[in-house]
């Protein structure tokens, strides 16, 4: 994984390391080792996306400058499930992380060459994509018509600014955007050829009669109809249903190692002063049922295998905190947006 552009002098590096190893440990902004900076989160920021979120770690509370800022959005597209089209029965998920939007400023890494930027984006994309498109997390409601059509879920994340701890920010933003995603309700339709009339109709030049499936108008559970060949979007009061199993989307903990200890939510200077970083991705089926979805190590340093087990246990503890804080914030956001929608409805005149 490529290092970003922050450079620190040897004196700064040893100052930061000595501070972390001191007893009691001290960090440059006075946080304790396992404190996060304040995280600002908002969902539903992109009106044309099926789900979106904006997240900022370490924003200045007064003037709103600084901090790692990430924008995530989910777009659903209909895809044919046929040989050679790339579609998969039951839907698929593709994630992409970019660090600069073409022709736009500001970009997160103005000092990097385009080659280095590509490498960096590739690194971020790889980690996100491999973790989130894993079959164990796949939501069951991405299919439309079995063996015919399914949803392609594209998750795009843009890093607008990097002030450290990008991976945690990426995963939190991804979780928020996927949480926010609404899958449009679909209703399958089929052609009903009326046998007795067909020949006569064909003779007179008419095609098969297209007929909407009237008896399945509930809008639910109509996807598995065997004869269905196409679908339509019923007019319904909301944007659709949420992704199945949206609680499972993982959170990431970046543990920055200054042996023998570690700390969380590093600033760029702190990141440049640590030789090894361990990323742990945890998914929570319920608060007590945790699975380790992924793990990465970066940096030139090394840690012993025996220490790793302990590290994962510690990481699980932090992940649980992140998970519960993030989930309650996401629920708050849902309530806030419902309230806003209601207010707008009341004040629509």
């Amino acid at each position, binding site marked *: 994984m490529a290092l970003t552009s922050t*450079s*620190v*002098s*040897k*004196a*700064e590096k*040893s*100052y*930061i390391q*000595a*501070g972390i190893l*001191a*007893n*009691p440990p*001290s*960090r*440059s*902004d*006075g*946080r*304790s080792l*396992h*404190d*996060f*900076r*304040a*995280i*600002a*989160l*908002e969902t539903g920021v992109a009106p044309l996306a099926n789900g979106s979120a*904006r997240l*900022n770690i370490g924003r*200045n*509370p*007064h*003037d*709103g*400058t600084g901090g790692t800022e990430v924008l995530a959005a989910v777009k659903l597209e209909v895809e044919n499930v046929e040989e050679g089209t790339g579609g998969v029965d039951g839907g698929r998920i593709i994630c992409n992380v970019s660090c600069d939007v073409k022709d736009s400023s500001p970009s997160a890494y103005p000092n990097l060459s385009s080659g280095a930027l590509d490498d960096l984006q590739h690194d971020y994309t790889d980690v996100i994509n491999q973790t989130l498109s894993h079959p164990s997390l796949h939501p069951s409601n991405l299919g439309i018509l079995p063996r015919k059509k399914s949803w392609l879920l594209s998750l795009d994340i843009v890093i607008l600014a990097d002030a450290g701890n990008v991976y945690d920010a990426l995963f939190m933003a991804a979780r928020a955007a996927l949480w926010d995603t609404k899958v449009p309700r679909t209703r399958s339709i089929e052609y009903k050829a009326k046998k007795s009339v067909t020949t006569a109709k064909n003779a007179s030049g008419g095609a098969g009669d297209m007929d909407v499936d009237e008896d399945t108008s509930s809008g639910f559970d109509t996807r598995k109809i065997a004869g269905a060949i196409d679908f339509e979007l019923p007019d319904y009061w909301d944007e659709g249903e949420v992704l199945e199993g949206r609680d499972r989307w993982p959170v990431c903990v970046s543990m920055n190692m200054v042996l023998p200890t570690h700390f969380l939510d590093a600033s760029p*200077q702190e990141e440049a002063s640590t030789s090894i970083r361990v990323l742990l991705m945890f998914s929570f089926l319920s608060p007590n049922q945790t699975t380790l979805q992924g793990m990465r190590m970066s940096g030139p340093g090394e840690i012993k295998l025996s220490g790793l087990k302990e590290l994962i246990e510690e990481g699980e503890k932090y992940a649980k*905190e*992140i998970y519960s*804080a*993030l989930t*309650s*914030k996401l629920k708050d956001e849902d309530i*806030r947006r419902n309230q806003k929608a209601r207010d707008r409805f009341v004040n629509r005149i």
Partner: protein
Amino acid sequence: MISFTSFPQPQDAYKRPEIEEDEDMEVDEDFMENGTLKLAWPGESLTSSHAYMRGHGTYVDNEEVIASVAGIVERVNKLITVRPVRTRYNPEVGDLVIGRITEVQARRWKVEANSRQDAVLMLSSVNLPGGVQRRKLESDELQMRTFFEEGDLLVAEVQAFFGDGTMSLHTRSLSYGKLRNGQLVTVPPNLIRRLKSHFISLPCGVDLILGLNGYIWISKHVKESDREGEEGFDAEGVYSNKNDAIDDSTRTAISQVANIISVLASHAVPLNDTVLLEAYEWSVEQEGGPKALLQDDVGDALVVTVASRS
């Protein structure tokens, strides 16, 4: 510990400033005559180019003076300038700056100092080991990285300008040179005014160097008598990368001062020694240590106190 907040919500009833259709624009003889404060945004047409001259931050297009930056419009007689709200550092000879080495080149270092172009530090403008007045040798050129290497922070003075406006620095004084024993904070350069001394010692055992380019070095206090190079010139000491032993209370004080500076900077309070001292004295009376200053309400209270005392 982790906590989530919200982004500030934009107000729904956004009030658009009413733009007056000024028919006298072309012959606007008394533009800003009454001394009102005017803010301009980039691309905003200010006045006619027949009656006024364009200054910094403006350009002329279609016979109109147009702002090229966001900032405050200023007028001196017939000259219109726009002073930008946020800007890079504009160097002047004699300024004290803090910079970071980005590149080691032949007989010179490139230094990043928050200016539009990287500054240059010539090998002939630094104190070499073995005596202040020593001539530079070829061997010095070969071991430039033993003095400064990439990433190193240094405090220097602006010596001169090259033809293209690049500033040339020098560290030929015992108070200049490599920085260690502390941490760097950056603020907008317009918050640092030219002071009698940019080296500040706070009574809490913390030394500050306010670079005019907005870089501030906060470090452990070093006694006058203990400064390197007082007797003879000790290259080991001056170009050392090793920090001294720093005790916990000094570390806390350094973090405290760093957080105070970022709070003051976010409230656009110009920094000087009295403001910093007031702020420090107020903040040590508060509970919670340096971390508490990261909360917005504590920061606001700090700024209110400082404003009322000074």
